[in-house]
């Protein structure tokens, strides 16, 4: 399956975006987010960006006060996932212009649209920023 979930969490551990590609109940989600966030937030910049959690890995990257956490299967290429996170941030940045936490909160659905263009069912679909943003621009124009 590849990617199992994408989480955006701020430094206080509050979830800012959550997209799961496998079914988890609400309680499971909360528990998982709590555990992972606790693990990742405790790490410093000197540590590597991979955390093993249960039977999968979490690849995370920090941008200022925001943590991007991606849960992947064990046979997934971790370095590529790091690049993927960066691509996601760049895409958001291109759309919002200097993206920040509040942009993501207040335009949650747009971020979801972007993510949807990039990842489907845990697989990466599109890696061109232009192609990712095209439908969103269209929609913005029409509304």
């Amino acid at each position: 399956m590849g990617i199992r979930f994408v989480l955006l969490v701020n430094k206080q551990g509050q979830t800012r975006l959550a997209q799961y590609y496998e079914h988890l109940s609400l309680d499971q989600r909360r528990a998982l987010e709590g555990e992972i966030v606790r693990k990742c937030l405790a790490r410093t910049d000197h540590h590597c960006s991979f955390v093993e959690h249960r039977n999968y890995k979490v690849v995370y990257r920090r941008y200022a006060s925001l943590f991007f956490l991606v849960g992947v299967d064990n046979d997934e290429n971790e370095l590529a996932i790091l690049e993927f996170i960066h691509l996601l941030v760049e895409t958001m940045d291109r759309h919002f212009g200097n993206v920040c936490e509040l942009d993501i909160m207040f335009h949650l659905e747009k971020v979801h649209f972007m993510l949807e263009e990039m990842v489907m069912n845990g697989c990466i679909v599109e890696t061109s920023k232009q192609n990712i943003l095209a439908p969103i621009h269209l929609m913005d124009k029409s509304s």
Partner: protein
Amino acid sequence: MTIDLIHIKCPQLCNLCGNRSHFRVRRGHFLVSPKEVYTPCKKFTLKSLFKNVEIKKRSTVISTTLLELPAVSEVSAARSDPKSPKRPKLILKNGLDRLDQTNPAPRERGAIFAIPTTTTFQIHPPIAAAAAAVPNPRGGEIPRRLALDSVEKIVEDFAMDLAINPFSSGTRLRDMIRAIRACKTAAEERAVVRRECAAIRAAISEGDQDYRHRNMAKLMFIHMLGYPTHFGQMECLKLIAAAGFPEKRIGYLGLMLLLDERQEVLMLVTNSLKQDLNHSNQFIVGLALCALGNICSAEMARDLSPEVERLLQSREPNTKKKAALCSIRIVRKVPDLAENFMGSAVSLLKEKHHGVLISAVQLCTELCKASREALEYLRKNCLDGLVRILRDVSNSSYAPEYDIAGITDPFLHIRVLKLMRVLGQGDADCSEFVNDILAQVATKTESNKNAGNAILYECVETIMGIEATSGLRVLAINILGRFLSNRDNNIRYVALNMLMKAMAVDTQAVQRHRATILECVKDADVSIRKRALELVYLLVNETNAKALTKELVDYLEVSDQDFKDDLTAKICSIVEKFSQDKLWYLDQMFKVLSLAGNYVKDDVWHALIVLISNASELQGYSVRSLYKALLACGEQESLVRVAVWCIGEYGEMLVNNVGMLDIEEPITVTESDAVDAVEVSLKRYSADVTTRAMCLVALLKLSSRFPPTSERIKEIVAQNKGHTVLELQQRSIEFSSIIQRHQSIKSSLLERMPVIDEASYLVKRAASTQATISSDKLAAAATSGGSLKLPNGVAKPPPAPLADLLDLSSDDVPATTSTSTTAPNDFLQDLLGIGLTDTSGGAPSSSTDILMDLLSIGSPVQNGPPAVSNFSPPGQAETKLASVTPQVVDLLDGLSSSTPLPDVNTAYPSITAFQSATLKITFDFKKQPGKPQETTIHASFTNLTSNTFTDFIFQAAVPKFIQLRLDPASSNTLPASGNDSVTQSLSVTNNQHGQKPLAMRIRISYKVNGEDRLEQGQISNFPAGLNCYDPFGPKCAVS
């Protein structure tokens, strides 16, 4: 002094508390204090904040409520300073002060401050500087901007809040988010969410059309916070069925977020999906494909698979790529459909669009996993295409849209390499076909950027996975070596990960990096340490075991506390696996025990004890080493246990330096030193119950080994007589009595433990990993009783089983199955587990069964006639003991005394409880006045045959609501022909007296001419009078 809330007087209804009198401004992340404003990450001074906020209305008056410290009358720090005009005029006061002279009479406990309008809205330079100085973790410009930007936004929002628009709608998405962020406690947040949910529900049920989009967005936010949002599911479906694109867009998003494939509701959406898949607008088709790809169930996959197949042929690349990924989901749900997609998947590989290519490659990978047939087909048909794609992307000139750090589309690279791995696995032809291109990628890819390394990493993995040539493998291993010496932790981590896989291919090559890997075990990063440790564990073999173990043990001393657990387990495992000589094993184990004894698992030190017990030539060395270690590191739990056990067993070797090895230096330990060591361990504050119990046993043994210390030991043991833990108390009392009164049997009782059989211990250790511990315990307990065929039941060598047996038999409720199975506590396992494994060979399981059967009175069928000869029930054990050591029994019986019962003037009819051709049992009943639930039964047994019964044992079991106590029988030999019948007393307490009648199941075993006999029966003909409430005795029985 903190102010929690600022309320602005506002004519508008407050959207949070519904109060018309004010509007809440404070936002979640602001704690306004006189001096400072706290945001989660930064501190702003109130001054700097207000100074830079432009307030649109002149002299806005804000009243604040001081929530936390109403008693504080004045906040001096925030007072406006008339000398400095630039400073915001700010007075916070409890109640009556005011700044604005025009302000009418202030209300109670409301303070007022006004903000001058002179300043402009811009970021105060210090804040901007502070924000810009946020450490920038991974390079790139975004982080800096993110931080700066959030500061700007916070300030801006604050300004907006202050200059509030009285006509703004209270329920915008933005407002809701803001309200949620403003919540300080979880309860507050729940309240806000509940209110919002109620509003959304109402809107949904009213069929509100205007705000559907917004409501959905809110629901998504609420869902993200982890609140239930099931009531929005139907609304999603409605939105999807709507005609407009924006509605569909949000509807599908909601569908993917709020629903999952298990929900019934999803079936309702199939039709809408089908329509949208056939829609003329490619974006709508894309939406439907996306939704289908994310959540479709097996049924939907079957229903909609033809549409998806058709869409794979579409002209639009956007549609094609989504259809390809949708097919992945379908194939995963219904593998049978794989063959339908094989042809189109291969043809998609000829496309130019990267999105289509990456999707097609992933589809091919999935097809290979789904069906053998597809794998063969793709091996034949798609390798050309793959090689071409890989060559194209790696040789292509700069492509701005897909460029990442100078490499064109690393994601596509990686997916193609992955598919090559799947295809080449175990197939020489395919492997050969891709050899060249892999070599090209491995040599030409830049390795100074993360993207390049990602490709190299995948490439190495593919080379390791397929049947690559040896040259290519060397290349791959070299790349890994480079990775391993990289300074970037991420790269090192993946290198370690890869080396694990490389172990399977080329162990020698990995061995070359051993030193570097060992360094990684000591890394600061737990992820890397863990990987490295696992790798080291794989690397250990006969030749390097000693060196590696030494390294690891050395590191154990300085490692993190939370890493010691893993490290200890691995070291113990290595040491056990590769120990060639026992001395080395012992040395390593002693080191580990002294360094990390608290982390050593029970089975490891159990095994150590077994080994020491078997190595008679090393026992002296062991006990001396352990003694030294105990003095040095007395706080390591496992070390203390092993040491104390050894001192107890081999105390004289410690004192007399028996069995000195050449390497040893002689030490002088006096008898009282040894006792001291154990005493210290016993009294150590942190010692747990097991350790203390073991200390007591060791002391008892030492009292026999070193007679001069006996008096002192008696005192130490006696100190625990009042211990709050029953187990310790009991041991202490029993042991004191052994030391005091039973000098004659003490030496034989406290002999050294018999050598523990290693083989059977290993078997048991393996078995005990399954969760059958309790029955094991019971088996051990049962055999311990049964196998000890000693005439008086006392002179048993180890005292521990004695204690345990007594423990079991003194249990008031041996009849309740649950109690019996759980009653044996850890000691039973600890001590019997070690001490009695040699006896647990033959029939323990069947004995357990008997015991269980007997105890569970409700069980309908008995498990056939088992061998009972070596089964000695609790009752009998007590019988035997009672005859010789009455004081022990007295102590054990404790509360329910076994003294002769007073004669009571009640008379119940006797019954013949049991009669067979050979045996007759009659019961007489007595009750004490005032205790109707208690019945004393006097059982007499009559032998009806002409042979004498020996080893006569009577057992009884009762339902859970009854408590049963069996007193010793008058004899265990039943003479022939009804003479001299044996008697035995039972006392029964019916906890549900008056509700449930007495019932009892009995079992009698005995020997006739050395042959085992077994009889059993159920007694239900107890006199009715026993069962009803009768303050006046038998009258009731008559009526």
